[in-house]
């Protein structure tokens, strides 16, 4: 899923301070699971902003709403009838949701309430870690199911660099060397022969290098 983290309250206060009617807009998907932008976080942020401005002697209207998703037309349409009641929206969705809402509601400022971090997993309670960078041509079949693109700092594709030490990456002793993980897994799978095969040159045009990416499916279009 998409991993995000809450922006500092001070930053959000700065973003919204000049608006009188503010809608806090949550999303029920990824940001709910990573506890950054679901209904609960909407309630907390709205309460905090109300109190902050009240203590400053300012009366503001702070509305709360959480949509099923902010990356789909049909759910974003649900706020069409209330959008003009607000001077600005703080969206707690990932960057996709914020932008999609902004594209739809051209005259309302859409402000991000979270920082979108990565595509990752819920590794432990309170710990979310990156697993994929959406490179557009997945190599996991050759790498024991462990991604060298997202988990190796250098994105090397044919075994570890010289900085791999005791299973850790040279960037930090807390970061596993992706290639150590790959080798360990290939051994467990009894597929070390795969490791000997030189990987073909990766097509990076499907990654960010090729500019913004799209998926078109004529078979599902109506």
């Amino acid at each position: 899923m998409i991993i995000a983290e809450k922006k500092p309250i001070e930053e959000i206060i700065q973003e919204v301070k000049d608006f009188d009617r503010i809608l806090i807009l949550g999303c029920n998907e990824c940001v709910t699971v990573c506890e950054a932008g679901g209904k609960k976080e909407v309630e907390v942020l709205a309460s905090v902003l109300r109190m902050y401005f009240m203590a400053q002697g300012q009366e503001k209207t702070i509305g709360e709403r959480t949509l099923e998703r902010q990356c789909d037309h049909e759910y974003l349409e649900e706020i069409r009838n209330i959008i003009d009641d607000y001077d600005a929206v703080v969206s707690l969705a990932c960057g996709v949701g914020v932008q999609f809402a902004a594209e739809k509601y051209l005259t309302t400022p859409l402000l991000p309430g979270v920082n979108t971090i990565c595509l990752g997993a819920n590794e432990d309670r309170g710990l979310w870690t990156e697993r994929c960078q959406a490179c557009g041509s997945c190599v996991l079949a050759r790498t024991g199911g462990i991604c060298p693109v997202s988990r190796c700092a250098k994105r090397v594709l044919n075994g570890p660099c010289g900085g791999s030490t005791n299973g850790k990456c040279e960037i930090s002793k807390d970061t596993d060397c992706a290639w150590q993980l790959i080798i360990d897994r290939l051994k467990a799978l009894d597929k070390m022969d795969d490791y000997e095969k030189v990987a073909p040159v990766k097509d990076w045009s499907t990654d960010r290098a090729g500019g913004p990416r799209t998926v078109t499916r004529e078979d599902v279009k109506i």
Partner: protein
Amino acid sequence: MRLKIPTNFRIIRLPCTGKIDIIHILRAFEKGADGLYVVGCMEGDCHFNEGNFRARKRVEQAARVLDLIGVGGERVKMYNLSSGEGPLFAQYSIEMVNKIKELGPSPIRLARQRMSKKADAA
């Protein structure tokens, strides 16, 4: 036990302090509470193992936020005691009430009063 406890606080019962969430604490302040304290079982004695540890974390989260927005994090506190410690419960309530008196009314309550006066005058 006929223990004297202050009369100016309200007890909200929870099945376990683990039920408390930061939003419950914030709502109390938003509605004008001057202070709030959570009384959980002794650490290590929670029937649900971690309820009171979760509560402590949430009280800490609330305190941080209240500090940030100028309400004052010292207005929330977590206490732990066992169900047999009535006198300690009384002592904690007195301690908390005295602390809040020392801090004075919450800026939110004052703001609410100003706002309703303004509304009355209008």
